[in-house]
């Protein structure tokens, strides 16, 4: 049985789900720097689907591709600890300000350069934007079919992947030939935890920039243990039209951003005493809101 070459698209995102008090500034807006950076949750669901294919088909390899600043190498290591084989960090100032279309162009060009993939799996959407656009756009850039809203990859037979999709009002099973791109919902199984053996193996896996920053001798290390090298690609490593990148390459422009500042409309404060509770329910019944 032959294995498959899988690419998992992952993103490091600020944890916008639990904005605590310490992340709020005095003016009521969010201090973004105070939010921890995490592996985008649905990308972890995507990684788990890839790992399940690897469990079933020995010889399968999983490459994590992420675009972001240098520190996004953290999520590649996180993926290695859970069973991925290698990773590519796509990082360049030229990507700054990219909207979803410029992002998918950069990722698409990277995948064309890398080649050698059967199945691309990504989370449905990232929690910092919730757009769900980059997956389908990358599929279009590569000219391959897409299966979105996947909950389970059921089987791979005769070059066709059967996928269960979770939609608003039910489920759907579709079959699609390889190569294809799949985006995975949060209703899919959670990702397995880190593996102690893999943590030992990969804890020193770093990009060249990280090695240089730590002043470590990466030349010898990478020669002896090539799996510790996390590939770091810039625009130099891929064929791109610079006009398609970053702000210039983004058709959508942010006209303005309003911080959400909360102003009270003056609510009636009700205590939890029996008198107040009784009074509240009577008011609601009298105003025909309930009853």
């Amino acid at each position, binding site marked *: 049985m032959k294995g498959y070459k899988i690419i998992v698209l992952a993103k490091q995102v600020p944890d*916008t*789900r*639990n*904005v605590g*008090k310490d992340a709020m500034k005095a003016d009521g*807006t*969010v201090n973004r720097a105070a939010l921890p950076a995490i592996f985008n*949750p649905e990308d972890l669901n995507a990684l788990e689907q890839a790992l399940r294919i690897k469990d079933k088909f020995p010889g399968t390899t999983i490459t994590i591709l992420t675009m972001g600043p240098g520190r996004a190498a953290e999520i590649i290591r996180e993926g290695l600890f859970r069973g991925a084989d290698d990773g590519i960090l796509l990082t360049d100032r030229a990507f700054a300000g990219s909207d979803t*279309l410029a992002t*998918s162009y950069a990722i698409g060009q990277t995948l064309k350069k890398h080649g050698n993939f059967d199945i691309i799996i990504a989370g449905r959407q990232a929690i*910092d*934007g*919730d*757009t769900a*656009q*980059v997956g*389908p*756009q990358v*599929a*279009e850039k590569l000219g391959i*079919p897409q*299966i*979105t*809203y996947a909950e389970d990859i059921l089987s791979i037979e005769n070059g066709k992947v*059967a996928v269960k999709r979770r*939609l*608003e*009002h*039910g*489920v*759907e*099973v*579709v*079959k699609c030939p390889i190569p294809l791109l799949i985006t995975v919902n949060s209703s899919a199984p959670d990702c397995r935890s880190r593996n102690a053996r893999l943590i030992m193996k990969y804890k020193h896996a770093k990009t060249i920039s990280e090695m240089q920053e730590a002043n470590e001798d990466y030349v010898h290390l990478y020669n002896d243990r090539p799996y510790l090298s996390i590939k770091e690609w810039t625009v130099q490593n891929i064929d791109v039209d610079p006009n398609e990148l970053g702000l210039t390459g*983004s*058709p*959508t*422009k*942010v*006209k*303005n*951003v*309003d*911080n*959400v500042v909360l102003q009270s*409309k003056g*609510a*009636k*404060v*009700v205590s*939890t005493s*029996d008198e107040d*509770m*009784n009074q*509240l*329910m009577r008011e*609601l019944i009298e105003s025909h*809101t*309930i*009853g």
Partner: protein
Amino acid sequence: MNSVFVYCEIEDGQVAEVSMELLTKGRALATELKCKLEAIAIGYQLDGIGKDIFPYGVDVLHVADDKRLAPYTTLPHNSIVVKLFQEEKPQIALMGASSVGRDLGPRVSSALHSGLTADCTSLVIGNHEDKKLGKEYKNLLYQIRPAFGGNIIATIVNPECRPQMATVREGVMKKNILDPDYKGVINNLDVSKYTTDADFVVELIERHVEKSKINIKGSPIIVAGGYGVGSKENFDLLFELAEVLGGEVGASRAAVDAGYVEHARQIGQTGTTVRPKLYIACGISGQIQHRAGMEESAQIIAINTDLEAPINSIADYVITGDVAEILPKMIKYYKANTK
């Protein structure tokens, strides 16, 4: 003047609710821009679909009718929409932010190199000045949406690329028939000219349409819980109160993510938008993405241990305290006052 287009989702021969809402919005935008409103219906056995679409004020309805086009699959619908947009050059294109629109929209926008804004909560026509380029743009579509976990509201524009594309969730816009006898024309598309065999590589093996039993959108009273409810067990209290009041249980995204209740109950920008008579928010902090889905509720009661919770700022009644203590009292005094 180029037209405003709405992609109409068809489910079992019926036009989807979200598409009718977008046709209504599209009509308003087209009238303001003094251009035509055009719609696209792609599916099978669509004879007579026009009578469901024209009353929203649609001037031209493009129909692609073929057995292989229903149920929806990405590639053929994508090919038809892309080719039609290349021919007709719409200035604005709207789709539902449903599993269909969010699958199709990005693929179309990538093929056309046009910008797409997902899950807009408001669409407005306005001007834009690019100071860097010294250029002025008249009558752009402002695509307004919360972003960054709902902590900011962003206004997005697409100055150069067309169409300006946006998706909107069901329930965000209001549907309204313009004129039951509105006269538009039908343009039947030759499907073989718009698709290739390669568009049909994805086979649909099976499909169960499970109509959701949960109807939070239509419920006049909603008891909604957030992460602060604390557990699945504590949610039982919400179900109890909802049952007594004749309402439904909703939830914030955090509560759904924590596994307290199913996703179908999620209210907010990435869930359902509701406008009940009464909204009781239990242990919900009230980030803007949640508020976007419920702030038009007629009355809001916020129950929270946190006096500073953002939800309190839009509430009519604020009760500071523990959900587990307060809900049984509400049930008790509701019963006492109604007998």
